[in-house]
């Protein structure tokens, strides 16, 4: 087949150091892989931050009536734990994979808008600092990650705490939206010839769905936050109850965003697992079409279930019934995914590297979160569960047992592609098992404490309520998770330099990213490959596996259009210049625009402090800096 030669399968002898290094190169990079790495490292750092917050929370709750931290500090900790894990850890970890993998999986040389991509990262990185640093001054947000009005408003949430939250979330939303448009454009326009939508790797599929969820859900939270921001800074009355404002407006808007957000967090992990399971089962994904459509179905139904977070509000029997039924329905496509994953493994030839353990761990643990999720769908019963630790147990099985397990599977699976070296399997095994046991020790007892009457978000509880044992076990589990995390960190950093050399395709992967050297050259593909089926690498290496699939060959015109670059037989480590591939110039401007935005938003905080001239200077100066940098960005050539 003519297309075979396009896919290089030569293993590189040893990974070579990146040509670019130094702080400046990282600040100015527009390479999707380096930006992916920036996302990865930043999000892993915040995982540590959010984990330490959880550790303090659990230490405070280990026994009744403890005072390890004050009530006020506890409230800041649980608010920041939620905010951090959702916006600064799981979403950016997913973004790390979007960045790194989507262009590689679809056979592209970069994302559609490389500089916008850098901008997204810098807004995230600086916005993360904006919302995280205040905790060192006791000024961290303290109104919960859900920020219910009127507690988050100026009357009951005075001070600067919730200012940082409102503005921080606005900033982070800019990042998510810019990235989402970028990836949608990338996936629609930049797929290699022959890669129809229904041939995209499942991770790309799930990412595609997630970008639409972000584009549709984030404007809602942005509007909700603008109302709150205006209430807090400019004296409007959207949620001000004394002036007749409606706190339920916030709840509806927040959850119209908040529920799709759950799928924004978990679908990328589903995608990663859908890459790992077939590879290590030596079988194609079972029911590819159904997997893709169930992902879309979950995303679609995800917008129609928001009010199940609000059954205690008293919406009336009709609304309660409708949201009960839609919530139940969403269990169906989710269940289909679970069964299809198991069917993928069934009859396979299973190998259990750490990535596979985490992938299977996701199936096992997410199932628990899924079942308890269906339990919340029944309002009469949910009224006993909502706002108790039962809910805390549920969503940690979804987000830790689902999203985090899937992301760990992805990290172990793609580490060799990213660094050219394998992670240590023995340490990986320790990490997995301690994580697995710690996860269950921490979160399973919360089912019991919740159904036995323990409310959420309480910084202390009285003795003799029947909750002591469960809380103690949860706390012990959290410390185990810390140990697991430290083992992972050691493994991650030591394997970068000392891990076994991986080669291009250590796992026998099916998709395009395994055809190129590890780590990939900055241009990714010396020649844009042609895709003949869902599993181009297996077409090449194990054609028997894909023989039963329909193969559609692109037309000669398509190929001609895609092949601006002549075929180079030995493309290993040739520079882009040698190959005649245009690479976008690195530029500091996206960073500067992001910085301008942060300065502009900081002006509002200064305004609240009461320094009017300084505030105006920051806001106007920040805006001018942003607009100026943006102008410079737009007028400088891309490549």
């Amino acid at each position, binding site marked *: 087949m003519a297309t075979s030669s396009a896919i290089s399968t030569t293993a590189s002898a040893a990974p070579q150091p990146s040509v670019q290094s130094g702080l400046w190169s990282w600040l100015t990079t527009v390479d999707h892989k380096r930006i992916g790495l920036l996302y990865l490292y930043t999000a892993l750092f915040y995982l540590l931050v959010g984990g330490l917050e959880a550790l303090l929370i659990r230490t405070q709750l280990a026994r009744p009536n403890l005072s390890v931290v004050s009530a006020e500090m506890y409230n800041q900790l649980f608010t920041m734990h939620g905010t951090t894990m959702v916006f600064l850890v799981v979403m950016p970890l997913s973004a790390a994979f979007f960045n790194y993998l989507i262009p590689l999986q679809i056979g592209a040389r970069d994302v559609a808008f490389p500089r916008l991509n850098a901008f997204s990262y810098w807004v995230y990185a600086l916005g993360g600092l904006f919302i995280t640093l205040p905790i060192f001054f006791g000024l961290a947000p303290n109104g919960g990650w859900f920020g219910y009005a009127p507690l988050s408003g100026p009357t009951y949430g005075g001070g600067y705490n919730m200012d940082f939250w409102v503005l921080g979330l606005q900033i982070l939303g800019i990042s998510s939206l810019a990235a989402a448009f970028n990836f949608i454009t990338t996936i629609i326009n930049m797929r290699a010839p022959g890669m129809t939508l229904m041939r995209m790797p499942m991770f790309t599929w799930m990412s595609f769905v997630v970008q639409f969820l972000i584009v549709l859900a984030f404007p809602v939270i942005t509007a909700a936050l603008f109302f709150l921001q205006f209430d807090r800074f400019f004296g409007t009355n959207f949620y001000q109850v004394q002036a007749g404002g409606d706190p339920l407006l916030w709840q509806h808007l927040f959850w119209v965003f908040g529920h799709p957000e759950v799928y924004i967090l978990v679908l990328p992990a589903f995608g990663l697992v859908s890459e790992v399971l077939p590879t290590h089962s030596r079988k194609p994904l079972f029911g590819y079409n159904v997997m893709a459509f169930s992902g879309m179905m979950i995303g679609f139904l995800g917008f129609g279930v928001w009010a199940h977070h609000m059954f*205690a509000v008293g919406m009336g029997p009709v609304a309660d019934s409708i949201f009960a039924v839609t919530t139940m329905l969403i269990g169906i496509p989710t269940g289909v995914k679970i069964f299809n994953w198991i069917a993928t493994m069934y009859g396979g030839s299973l190998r259990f590297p750490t990535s596979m353990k985490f992938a299977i761990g996701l199936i096992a643990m997410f199932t628990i979160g899924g079942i308890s999720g*269906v339990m919340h769908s*029944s309002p009469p019963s949910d009224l*006993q569960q909502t706002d108790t630790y039962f809910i805390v147990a549920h969503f940690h099985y979804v987000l830790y047992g689902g999203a985090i397990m899937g992301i760990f599977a992805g990290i172990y699976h793609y580490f060799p592609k990213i660094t050219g070296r394998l992670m240590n399997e023995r340490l990986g095994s320790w990490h997995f098992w301690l994580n697995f046991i710690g996860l*269950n020790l921490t979160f399973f007892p919360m089912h019991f404490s919740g159904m036995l009457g323990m409310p959420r978000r309480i910084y202390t509880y009285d003795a003799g309520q029947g909750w002591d044992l*469960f809380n103690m076990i949860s706390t012990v589990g959290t410390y185990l998770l810390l140990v697991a995390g430290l083992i992972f960190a050691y493994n991650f950093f030591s394997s970068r330099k000392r891990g076994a050399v991986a080669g291009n395709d250590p796992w026998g992967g099916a998709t395009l990213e395994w055809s190129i050297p590890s780590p990939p050259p900055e241009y990714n593909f010396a020649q844009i490959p042609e895709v003949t089926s869902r599993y181009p690498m297996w077409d090449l290496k194990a054609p028997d596996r894909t023989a*039963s699939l329909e193969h559609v060959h692109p037309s000669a015109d398509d190929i001609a259009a895609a092949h601006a670059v002549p075929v180079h037989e030995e493309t290993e480590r040739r520079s882009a210049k040698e190959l005649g591939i245009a690479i976008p110039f690195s530029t500091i401007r996206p960073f500067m625009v992001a910085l301008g935005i942060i300065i502009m938003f900081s002006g509002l905080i200064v305004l609240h402090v009461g320094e009017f001239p300084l505030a105006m200077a920051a806001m106007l100066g920040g805006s001018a800096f942003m607009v100026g940098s943006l102008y410079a960005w737009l007028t400088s050539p891309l490549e």
Partner: protein
Amino acid sequence: MSTSHLRRVAPVAVLALVLLALAACGGDYPNSTFSHNTTLNDGAVFLWDRMMLLGTIVFVVVEVLLVYTMIKFRRREGGPAPRQTHGNAALEITWTAIPALILVFLAVPTVKTIFENQRKAPAESLQVEVIGHQWWWEFRYPEYGIVTANELYLPIGKTVDFSLQTRDVLHSFWVPQLGGKRDLIANRVNHIWFTPKATMQPTALNGACVEYCGSSHANMRFRTFAVTPAEFDKWVAHQKTVALGSPAASVTTADSAVKEKPIVPLKTASLISLPTSAPTAAPEAWSFPAERMPAYTLPSTPLPATKFDETLLAAGDPKAGRELLTNPANLGKAPCLTCHVIRGETNYANDDQAKGPNLTHIGTRHTFAAGLYRLDAKALALWIKNAPAMKPGSVMPTFGAGEYNAMIKQAVPAAAGLDDRQIADIVAYLRSLK
């Protein structure tokens, strides 16, 4: 390697979970949601049982399939290459249809129960107004003109129709043993109703705020006393009056309630039905007997390190305490009645304006500060001396001379604060308010 791991670890994990489940089912759990004290609970437990059954079946099927697959199909050296299957429409339709079918068995009773629970309350129900404050509970019985705080009395066998309001942020009303929760939403009146079953034994139960409401959300608890109808009537008869043991009662007799003129007219209709004629005989004080309170309803919150000369407590003089509270000359030092109401005394705020709990019958209560402390002399004295030290964020100011007042960020000056003897007198007065 990993399957042997799994074989070793899996039984231990399963055993641990089973033990935990047994612990959860066997022990003494005073706030369990699995009681059958109301029909709300019956519905919730019925649905729970069904979901638990269906959920367990799904869980076992998934996990058994998963573990079986992991063991059966693990890679063996020289084993045959796996058959390449890309899907199976019949199978996939089956495992789409079966969960859908399962959900029908959940959806039908769910919708049925929703509509049953949310019917209108029977007209003859006892009306109770629940008002949330940061961070305490106000309970009003508008039919009887009773306003009380943090301790809710309910007659067994009678339907109670709660109307829920908040004076500030959102709260949520929950007595796990009596049914699901309902939020208190600003600018709205919310409703929930249930009937403590006639078969229920009189007892004390715990309740809590379950919507995050700020600093002391964890400290916004309350007690519910489910009592016999006869006991409830006794309690009502007494609560309607002014306090029996108070000097106010001995000086002006029980009909002072009639003469009471609130400074500002009441805004809500709830308080208008005060007694219109003097009761013929002062009813006997009755509240739920302390000796019948189960241990889990007795708070064990540790007291703060605030210093207090406890020997003064026994010698506290209720008359002197009353003088401190009611003489306008002392308003600067002891402005209690600007935020609290004691019916029969000259109040500076009515119940709709009061920032703190109504104290008319505080001497009959078992707990205070939203169920955070037992109502004993020492705890009460420490509270008056420095309330924010006992309940983070409390709007009750620091009154003890020399105590650090977080609100004004300095110690209370000796001249402006109360000394320990004065506090002991006030405590004696409050405790006399039976």
